[in-house]
């Protein structure tokens, strides 16, 4: 999903490269020109983040920065904990770029990127192990408790509401009888 929106930015005439990084400076999407050495990214993100932090704390919070150099312009945008850096020619249509990058910032969320997938991926692994009822019965019962394990499965299979409904009314009737 995020690639689609990043590519839309690259389609704007004059845009030469885009990259996205998170609040911790981790590179999430890198579509910068090949002359940009990725090893320099640590410095770049650190500097960009320090600019944001300093201005936020000592001036007024600014989400957008436009840095004009003689050869190129750099656009820095921030939203939802995601930082977007666009390298462009000075001839770029700023209105188009803003519209397209608005969409990108709207749809690219930290939860969908970099760090987020890891916890999400680790959760599905742990839950199967954590719930004792599912894990322990399968391992322990292998020698004898095969029987208790089966009924558990059978119960799960026979769970169709029709049978349970047929069983439940009986105790209800007896309770009514004892109460009266």
């Amino acid at each position, binding site marked *: 999903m995020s690639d689609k929106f990043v590519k839309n930015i690259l389609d704007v005439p004059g845009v030469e490269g885009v990259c996205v990084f998170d609040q911790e400076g981790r590179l999430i999407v890198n579509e910068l020109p090949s002359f*940009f050495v990725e090893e320099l990214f640590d410095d770049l993100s650190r500097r960009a983040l*320090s600019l944001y932090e300093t201005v936020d704390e000592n*001036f007024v919070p*600014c989400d957008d*920065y*436009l840095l*004009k*150099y003689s050869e190129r312009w750099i656009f820095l945008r921030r939203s939802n904990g995601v930082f977007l850096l666009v*390298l462009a020619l000075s001839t770029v249509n700023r209105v188009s770029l803003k519209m397209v990058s608005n969409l990108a910032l709207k749809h690219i969320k930290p939860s969908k990127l970099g760090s987020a997938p890891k916890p999400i991926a680790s959760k599905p692994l742990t839950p199967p192990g954590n719930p004792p009822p599912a894990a322990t019965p399968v391992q322990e019962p292998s020698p004898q408790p095969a029987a208790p394990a089966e009924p558990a499965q059978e119960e799960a299979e026979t769970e169709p509401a029709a049978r349970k409904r047929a069983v439940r009314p009986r105790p209800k009737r007896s309770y009514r009888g004892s109460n009266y």
Partner: protein
Amino acid sequence: MGFTEDALGTPQFPGLLGMIECDEAGNILHSEGDDAEALGQVLVFMHQISDLIGESFGLDGLEEGHFIGKHMTAVCVPRGGSDLGVLFESKANISEILPSILEG
């Protein structure tokens, strides 16, 4: 340039909130407007860190930096030995006004 002038003949720029000029050490050389001094606190740092960001791409020094907030935009213009910071309302036509300010 089509800008109005006050009684003293000073041009009035619509949307201009203030301006400040600082030397490389951060000392204020000139200031106009209420919020301009707050900009002065970060102006030199803005310039220096923007230079470093451009350096990552092999770009020469910053020519103009726009710091765009919700209600105002601050523009940092490095000049030889000093930095000029100009504060605008968010809807000001900066590309039209800024050259006139720099000429003046």
